[in-house]
């Protein structure tokens, strides 16, 4: 369980913005095994919040606790997938996954790591592309490898920062299905990974999340549960009607929020 206690953050080195906090006094909890989406307009601090959870930034005030212990630096029980893939460009797909396995499973033999890497690449549908380097792959393929890499790290918390934001519609749908399938593969909901998924796409949030935290600039606007059955088929039947209803109310709520772009001072850093 992840607990945020009055967490505030500002990019202190950014002089123009010293006056203003990127995030102020956030408090909420993320249950173990929950699929949480953080949605909201761009520039409202979604990515900053995720980086705080990952320990890549430190909160200026307040505390983040994971199972009771405070986050003070990147933790050994989290993996992260970035929007821009962040694969190591000098390694091919297989080496990228294998390298992560060997670093996160100390003592594993090279052949075991290779076999494991094969398995994870197969899970994301990249079994044939193991010897390709990132520069030879499309965005969708790279993100599949990045997901395989994050899964291979075998961490109980998975953070995703707009992972499908740069992909075309077809790839995005495929990867959404893939992510849900992989996450649901563990039948016992209590044993599933905790997933925190940042997106600006309401449709995507409703498609994937157990719960959506809708952010407004500087803080949380609302926390909305999504009580749809899994695996989700969204377009038809009564579930489809329910889906559209949730999406509509969320979109309306989003339109009411202040647009951060209109404000005098927008904090830098990754949006």
């Amino acid at each position, binding site marked *: 369980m992840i607990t945020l206690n009055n967490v505030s953050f500002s990019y202190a080195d950014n002089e123009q913005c010293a006056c203003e906090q990127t995030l102020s006094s956030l408090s909420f909890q993320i249950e173990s095994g929950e699929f949480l989406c953080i949605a909201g307009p761009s520039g409202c601090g979604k990515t900053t919040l995720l980086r705080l959870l990952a320990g*890549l930034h430190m909160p200026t005030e307040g505390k983040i606790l994971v199972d009771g212990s405070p986050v003070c630096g*990147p933790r050994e029980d989290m993996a992260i997938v*970035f929007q821009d893939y*962040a*694969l190591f460009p000098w390694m091919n797909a297989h080496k990228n996954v294998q390298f992560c396995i060997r670093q996160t499973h100390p003592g594993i033999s090279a052949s075991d790591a290779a076999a494991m890497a094969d398995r994870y690449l197969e899970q994301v549908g990249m079994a044939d592309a193991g010897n390709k*380097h990132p520069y030879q792959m499309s965005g969708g393929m790279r993100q599949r490898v990045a997901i395989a890499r994050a899964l291979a790290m075998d961490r109980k918390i998975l953070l995703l920062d707009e992972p499908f934001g740069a992909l075309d519609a077809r790839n995005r749908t495929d990867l959404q299905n893939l992510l849900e399938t992989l996450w649901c593969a563990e039948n016992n909901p209590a044993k599933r990974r905790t997933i925190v998924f940042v997106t600006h796409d309401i449709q995507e949030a409703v498609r994937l999340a157990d719960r959506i935290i809708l952010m407004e600039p500087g803080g949380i606007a609302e926390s909305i549960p999504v009580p749809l059955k899994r695996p989700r088929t969204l377009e038809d039947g009564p579930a489809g009607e329910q889906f559209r209803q949730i999406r509509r109310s969320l979109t309306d709520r989003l339109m009411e929020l202040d647009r951060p772009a209109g404000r005098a001072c927008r904090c830098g850093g990754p949006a």
Partner: protein
Amino acid sequence: MNKKQLASVSSFSGFFSVFIPHVLLAVLAGIILFVPKKKQLLHAPGALLAALLVIELLFLIHFLMQKRKQNRGGRSGAQSGILSSTDGIPSSAALSYTEGPRDIMIFVWLIMILWETCTSVLDLAHPVLVPAPENVFFTFYEHWNVMLLNIAYSMELLLAGMIIGLTLAVILGLFCGWIPRLKAFAYPIANVLAPIPAVVISPYLVSLMPSFRSASALVVVLGVFWPQFLSTINRIGSIEPEILDSARMLHLRTPVMLFRILLPYLIPGILTGLKVTMTTSVLMLNFAELMGATHGMGYYIQNSITYANYAHAVAGIIVIGVVVTILNRIVGFIQKKLIRWH
């Protein structure tokens, strides 16, 4: 335009691209062999003719390889070239692969004709300072063993200096770039020391070091080390944040971070810098060799100038040009093989 016409166009232009340089070559050979010479003390033209033959062969090999590449590269390239030229828009696609080498050859033969005419045939240039091509190329025949020895001697120093300088720069740069405390210590010091040109202090180094060889190696090491050391630190400072973040999430130990992440990340930059570095080190080395060496290419030229033997000096200059070109080709080849991912 149908295929037949296309083919005839390309063979026509192909004929011309070889035709003009060869007319010039024939004129040059004719002047060398049959025109009476005014200049005294000319060596036999055999070495010069052999050199022309070698240049011609290199040109033909290069030309044929480019032509094959063009034919393999596909009809589409040629077709788009023709289309864009009818639009009146010059484009790089319109430039045939063979035009570059042809223009270069025309330039080379014209220079040679001018040189031969001004010196040997009409004796217009300064009789001592501007040697005749016959005499310059005769040097290669006369001195090939001395020259090879000097090249080997220079290369040994150059390689030793570069390997030591580069290895030190990259390893120390890795540590200083990654560990903040070391960086805070070493970076300001390096910024003060790096701009001191090693060439200027090389006479001092020559008297300071126990032997001349170690002094010239040190000059090369210094010339390579400082720029590579500083740029290694700078490159680590500007590493892509995504790569750094995903490495941080993996909890890598410092040695793994340095040698599995940062080092491979740096290699393309190091190799790109290597071409410039190598030209600089050849410069450094040759300069150091002017200082009082007893071997080496720089020494050879210096020695020839001391004895007013300008034919030997010019031959030495040509050799340095050829050697640096070959070294650059080797670096380019390594670059291609090692960093395809970049």
